[in-house]
């Protein structure tokens, strides 16, 4: 893809695929997040990419510019969160998916979507596009509870990630979390190596921080994630997975404390920059 900064397409020509199966449940607001910024987002069922549906319903992954895996409990999170969605996708679409990522097209996984990307081997995918087996796990929160709460994310990416190009380095965003399995883990013997590698590759995108930023503790890191990581990208910077939900804070009045703020309630919420960044990058690249 060419990074020459020339705008090549209209936002409305950007086709976003919001992909779901049974139990995915954040597809409407994820779709709306792209749509309100002018993109053409379509929510489709995995079956429309893979199998027996009528020709009118059939879709091709390559026809889209952006692929988004929304939050939810796909297939009930049975077996493991995201595992069934990932296995179904991998068995039928591994090649298409790899091609999509290798073309530099953006892939976003939010919450359950992040879990799916990890199970697919698309994240962290060090040294390759898609690992055959998962290289990490999003495991049960230390609290063993589902945690629905505001979380603060510090942007730690130095410029690789297509989804955060409009977020200044070090900026803290309020993006709420709602999950029971967001505890990022690497194989215990490889943990330090992986962390170093992620830093080196500029794959760490967001870390949880306390509102006052001086220390980090539960509940501000709601899950006990290694190195307080909330979101990572692949080496190419075009696949992002994060546990918190940027699509839930597109407007200021979706923030939990907006009535205390002097900012306009219908102004931008902290999540909007993520969607805006990726759409602007797509406009320049395809």
């Amino acid at each position: 893809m060419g990074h020459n900064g020339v705008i090549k397409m209209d936002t409305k020509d950007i086709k976003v695929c919001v992909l779901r199966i049974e139990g995915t449940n954040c597809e409407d607001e994820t779709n709306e997040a792209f749509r309100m910024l002018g993109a053409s987002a379509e929510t489709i069922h995995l079956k429309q990419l893979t199998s027996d549906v009528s020709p009118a319903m059939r879709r091709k992954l390559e026809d889209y510019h952006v692929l988004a895996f929304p939050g939810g409990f796909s297939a009930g999170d049975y077996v493991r969160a995201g595992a069934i969605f990932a296995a179904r996708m991998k068995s039928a679409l591994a090649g298409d998916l790899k091609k999509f990522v290798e073309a530099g097209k953006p892939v976003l996984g939010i919450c359950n979507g992040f879990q799916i990307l990890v199970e697919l081997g698309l994240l962290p995918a060090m040294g390759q596009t898609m690992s055959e087996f998962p290289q990490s796990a999003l495991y049960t929160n230390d609290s063993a509870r589902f945690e629905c709460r505001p979380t603060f994310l510090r942007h730690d990416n130095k410029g690789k990630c297509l989804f955060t190009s409009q977020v200044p380095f070090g900026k803290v965003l309020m993006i709420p979390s709602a999950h029971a399995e967001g505890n990022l883990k690497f194989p215990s013997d490889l943990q330090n190596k992986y962390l170093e590698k992620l830093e080196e590759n500029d794959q760490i995108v967001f870390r949880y921080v306390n509102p006052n930023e001086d220390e980090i503790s539960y509940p501000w890191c709601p899950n006990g994630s290694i190195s307080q990581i909330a979101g990572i990208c692949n080496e190419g910077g075009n696949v992002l997975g994060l546990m918190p939900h940027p699509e839930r804070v597109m407007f200021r009045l979706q923030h939990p404390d907006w009535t205390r703020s002097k900012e306009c309630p219908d102004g931008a919420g902290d999540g909007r920059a993520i969607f805006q960044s990726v759409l602007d990058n797509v406009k320049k690249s395809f």
Partner: protein
Amino acid sequence: MVNAEIRIELKKGVADPEGANTKKALELLGFKGILGVKTVKMFSIELDMGAEEALAACEEMSRKLLANPVIQSYKIELK
């Protein structure tokens, strides 16, 4: 026909919050003397094939879906 049991366990050193919570709940119900509770997932799978083939299939299933090698190990037993 073969019946395979695939047992998915957490790898050593991986904390088990579900087990810990289940222990708490059991104690709430009045059970005493519980030293520890571990969660283990068991899949019982009926297969229409020979033992050797079944073992290979189960291996494949475990790797493709049932276990995440980062946190889980699996054991396959044919009955």
